[in-house]
């Protein structure tokens, strides 16, 4: 469909806000999240932008400049907003910018063309406020691909504002948009939406009260007041506020439902009516194979068995058995065990006369014999195979379908499908995933996700090593997995019950399912392995150095001694205390320690299972602990770690006692 710009004639226009000073021309971008507003902002302004907090708030506003015609315009990008009745600080700031504080010369409402019907209600609201509005139908290419046609010229005429179709990713329509901004004048003819007689009568009364305050014809403001908006009321004098309150109360008496709901419903009805007049849909075509497969993946009856199959083949067989079994065996026993370690030990014995330095390089906890061996021979093959598996998952578009599938289960533990993002990223690195909890919409969800990540989501290397340790013992593996799933669900369920707040909501548009491309998978896996070498291997070496220092000063042995008693309560031999110290450095470091211990043959099947469960649930690593404190504050950060320390040992002790009481031999 051609992008078009149409401007209706200016007759009988509703009152517009006071025009800005001629020297300053300001255009403000508004719209709900994820409609391509930021990209559109960049297209208008170029790369340069200034980001600052909106005065008196912590909400960030992006501002830039655009040359439109022969004039320089200021461009401001507001945070995502759905309506002029704010539900968050971000929406409050966005509303203040367009309605009260800035007096923009043009307001661009950016909408996702595919979802025009849903977004037109906000357009009507902005229109009722009499703003100099331009409607931007963005992401037009995707709408066209779905067979949606929008008559922009007709919509422009019906709304009395310019309507421009754009694709911000390719700059399509940006020229027309610039022209529309340059020509922007107060909004044109618009048949003002009528509500029920009772509501219209109350609106009339409030408009008269506003006129007496020196703000004639402010229908948009009157509507906000009628819907009980406290911010708008606080801008009135005490007498006017009291009069408005009485009018609102009188109007409300005639209805059983809140006025806010009634007005929003009527506006949405009108938006649907408007959309029906300007949108055309191509006749439904038969579903493609990818669409049918997508439906199967998100259907609980078929989706969960497929998920189990994916986890079994991808994680257990590919990462656990092949990566942690075959590849680790070759690298550790052949490359390091047969060649590298003996060579390093021989070289150090010959050329390094100082025993502490020899220990640092090639001792029991040496940089090469322990740090590099753990990092390169044990962890690298596991994370490498995990990265490969994860890249395939990513490239096929399976991850968002996984989110849809487990949305219902996650709601029981206070999260939604959106919580899948940090949980899946947690399988890569829990520390990064904890930062990503910021993308969850409520503090309650962020706290629940942080607790679950720190407690019951093992990172890929830890997971792979545990699969490798337990793969020959299916009963032990089943107990480990069962305890972990149970703890995950139980703690999530308890958090959801104990933490106050509304249940989460989740809405997501699914990208198409596609065949993975070899090139993409190679690039993603390679990029992640390079990252691992640069960021993680140095940490392994650092851990070896710290342990070496700890041994020199006696601190390491002291800590190990202190942990020996709690470890005995778990039914484990005292030498396993060190794996918990390793685990606090990094989760995978602890798992690698357990792998070493198992190889020495000092653990029975029950001991191995108890150690694997306790170590998986054990304290987050140092980096994650620091991020927990940074993200959730000192109280939650320390509280979560203290709880996990006690809880993980309690579960381990309980599991050990239960297995012995039932005389289970693994």
């Amino acid at each position: 469909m051609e992008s078009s710009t149409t401007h209706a004639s200016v007759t009988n226009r509703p009152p517009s806000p006071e025009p800005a000073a001629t020297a300053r021309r300001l255009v403000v971008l508004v719209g709900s999240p994820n409609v391509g507003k930021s990209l559109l902002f960049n297209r208008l302004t170029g790369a340069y932008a200034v980001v600052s907090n909106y005065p008196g708030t912590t909400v960030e506003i992006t501002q830039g400049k655009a040359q439109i015609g022969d004039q320089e315009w200021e461009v401001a990008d507001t945070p995502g907003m759905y309506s002029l009745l704010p539900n968050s600080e971000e929406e409050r700031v966005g509303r203040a910018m367009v309605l009260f504080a800035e007096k923009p010369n043009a307001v661009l409402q950016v909408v996702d063309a595919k979802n025009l019907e849903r977004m037109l209600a906000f357009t009507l609201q902005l229109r009722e406020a009499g703003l100099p509005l331009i409607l931007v139908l963005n992401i037009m290419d995707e709408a066209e691909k779905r067979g949606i046609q929008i008559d922009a010229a007709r919509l422009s005429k019906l709304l009395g504002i310019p309507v421009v179709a754009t694709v911000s990713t390719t700059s399509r329509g940006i020229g027309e948009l610039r022209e529309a901004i340059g020509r922007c004048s107060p909004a044109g003819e618009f048949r003002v939406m009528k509500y029920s007689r009772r509501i219209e009568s109350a609106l009339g009364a409030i408009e008269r009260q506003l006129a007496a305050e020196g703000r004639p014809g402010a229908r948009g403001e009157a509507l906000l007041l009628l819907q009980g908006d406290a911010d708008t009321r606080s801008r009135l004098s005490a007498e006017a506020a009291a009069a408005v309150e009485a009018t609102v109360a009188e109007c409300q008496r005639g209805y059983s439902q809140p006025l806010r709901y009634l007005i929003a419903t009527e506006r949405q009805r009108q938006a649907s009516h408007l959309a029906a007049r300007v949108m055309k849909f191509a006749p439904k075509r038969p579903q493609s194979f990818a669409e049918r497969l997508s439906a199967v993946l998100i259907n609980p009856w078929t989706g969960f068995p497929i998920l189990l199959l994916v986890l079994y083949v991808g994680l257990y067989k590919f990462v656990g058995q092949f990566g942690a079994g075959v590849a680790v065996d070759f690298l550790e026993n052949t490359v390091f065990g047969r060649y590298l370690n003996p060579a390093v030990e021989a070289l150090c014995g010959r050329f390094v006369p100082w025993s502490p330095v020899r220990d640092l390089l090639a001792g029991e906890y040496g940089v090469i014999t322990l740090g590099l061996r753990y990092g390169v021979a044990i962890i690298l093959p596991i994370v490498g195979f995990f990265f490969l598996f994860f890249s395939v998952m990513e490239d096929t578009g399976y991850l968002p379908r996984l989110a849809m599938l487990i949305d219902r289960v996650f709601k029981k533990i206070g999260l939604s499908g959106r919580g899948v993002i940090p949980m899946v990223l947690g399988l890569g690195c829990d520390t990064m995933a904890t930062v990503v909890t910021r993308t969850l919409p409520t503090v309650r969800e962020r706290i629940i996700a942080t607790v679950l990540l720190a407690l019951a989501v093992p990172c890929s290397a830890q997971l792979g090593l545990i699969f490798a340790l337990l793969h020959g013992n299916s009963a032990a593996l089943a107990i480990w997995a069962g305890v972990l799933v149970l703890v995950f669900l139980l703690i999530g369920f308890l958090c959801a019950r104990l933490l106050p707040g509304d249940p989460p909501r989740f809405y997501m548009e699914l990208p198409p399912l596609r065949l993975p491309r070899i090139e993409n998978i190679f690039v993603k896996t390679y990029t992640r392995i390079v990252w691992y070498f640069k960021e993680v291997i140095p940490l392994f070496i650092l851990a070896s150095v710290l342990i070496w220092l700890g041994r020199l000063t006696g601190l390491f042995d002291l800590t190990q001694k202190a942990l020996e008693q709690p470890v005995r309560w778990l039914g484990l031999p005292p030498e396993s205390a060190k794996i918990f110290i390793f685990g606090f450095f990094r989760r995978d470091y602890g798992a690698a320690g357990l792998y070493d211990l198992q190889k020495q043959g000092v653990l029975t099947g029950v001991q191995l299972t108890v150690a694997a469960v306790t170590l998986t649930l054990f304290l987050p690593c140092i980096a994650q602990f620091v991020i927990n404190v940074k993200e959730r504050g000192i109280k939650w950060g320390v509280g979560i770690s203290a709880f996990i320390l006690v809880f993980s040992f309690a579960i381990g002790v309980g599991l050990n006692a239960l297995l012995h009481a039932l005389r289970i031999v693994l």
Partner: protein
Amino acid sequence: MTRCGYCGMEFDEAAAEKACRSCPMSGCRMVRCPRCGFESLPEPRWIRWLKNRRRKDVAER
């Protein structure tokens, strides 16, 4: 342009930088999707160079 591995959104580096602005983990080099927050690693320079070169070749042909 980068394609998000989770929601499929295509975005440029400027939009990703904006999504990362308030993150405390400065210097982590991850690219965050401005729509869903999913993080991925930026492609190494030599891969980008190869891709650009291939695109150029195709355009010239």
